[in-house]
């Protein structure tokens, strides 16, 4: 088969020579880097231009920017409380970045940045390290109480390691959730697109049948747009929930 459904996820350098190297690793400017630059530029441009009018009665673009602002602010307020709002810039940036990456990935021939485990894992690792730092800054060593459930001493020997492991499982579950959703959706699209090509090439009655997978692609495309927005939301709200835990320790129980 000429077109492999996983081909779209291939990371390849766009410039022959490495930009620079760290240790023995050469750092290349890849298609992935290019799309991250595009996404960041597009998001910044959109939000800046949309708000540049700053009208009392917002234009369409301005109300989109305002709605996303309010949406994220409400989300933080409801899941991490009043003092969670100090982290608004961080969570808003994360949300917009993931959202734009997902949406830009829906454009044909584009590259979906969030379909790479390296990207989602790095994002998650950064978020979790921030949560740990915030926890220690806010509570000092009292933050470690997060890993000590209410239980008799002799059980704690077993429960504390389990709690610590379960804290770090977020590293995997959060990154894999985003990555797997994007990967699965895009692979499915490519597979159905492959069916269209194969049926079309088969000739005769089979060529007419190729309209079936074609319609399927349209439906999956719509579903994927929903998934793109939903996964960005899930990513952001889980960040809020983890921040809430670091800020308020066991209050949420």
């Amino acid at each position, binding site marked *: 088969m000429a077109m492999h459904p996983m081909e779209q996820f291939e990371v390849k350098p766009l410039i022959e020579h490495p930009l620079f190297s760290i240790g023995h690793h050469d750092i290349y400017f890849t298609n992935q880097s290019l799309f991250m630059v595009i996404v960041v530029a597009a998001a910044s441009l959109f939000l800046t231009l949309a708000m540049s009018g700053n009208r009392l009665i917002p234009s369409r673009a301005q109300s989109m920017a305002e709605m996303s602002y309010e949406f994220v602010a*409400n*989300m933080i307020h*409801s*899941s991490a409380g009043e003092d969670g709002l100090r982290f608004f810039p961080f969570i808003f940036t994360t949300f917009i970045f993931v959202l734009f990456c997902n949406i830009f990935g829906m454009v044909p021939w584009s590259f979906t940045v969030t379909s790479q485990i390296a990207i989602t894992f790095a994002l998650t690792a950064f978020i979790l390290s921030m949560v740990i730092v915030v926890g220690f800054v806010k509570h000092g060593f009292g933050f470690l109480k997060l890993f000590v459930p209410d239980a008799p001493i002799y059980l704690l020997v*077993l429960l504390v*390691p*389990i*709690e610590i*492991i*379960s804290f*770090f*499982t*977020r*590293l*995997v*579950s959060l990154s*894999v*959730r985003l990555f*797997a959703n994007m990967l699965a959706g895009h692979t499915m699209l490519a597979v159905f697109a492959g069916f269209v090509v194969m049926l079309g090439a088969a000739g005769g009655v089979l060529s007419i049948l190729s309209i079936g997978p074609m319609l399927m692609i349209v439906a999956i495309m719509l579903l994927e747009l929903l998934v793109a927005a*939903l996964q960005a*939301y*899930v990513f952001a*709200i889980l960040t809020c929930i983890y921040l809430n835990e670091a800020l308020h320790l066991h209050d949420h129980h």
Partner: protein
Amino acid sequence: MSDTGPDDLQRLGARLDAAERKRATGDQRPPPTQASIAFRFGTEMIAGLLVGGGMGWGLDWLFGHFGFHTKPWLMIVFFVLGAAAGIRGVMRAANELNAQMAAAPAAPSVKQDDEEN
């Protein structure tokens, strides 16, 4: 008109209270589909095993550098602990889902309610 007035106001007040409560409890997430629930449980479990096993392996490696030959025992112990953490994660996810379902009684159909219990 004048007798319905207070009634209307009360009803409006009740609706406002309900809206406020919904806002306070926060979760505006749409009810998850069966597939996403299954996926969530799967990742929680596998994440526990991976992180547990990985941590044990890392500790073995670390201790090995200081001359303690714990290999492969810490990995085995942590793998089991990781399984426990994974199950705990699944239980936590199930609790969250139950709470979410209870908070939004209007959303799921009766059939889904039965499946949940």
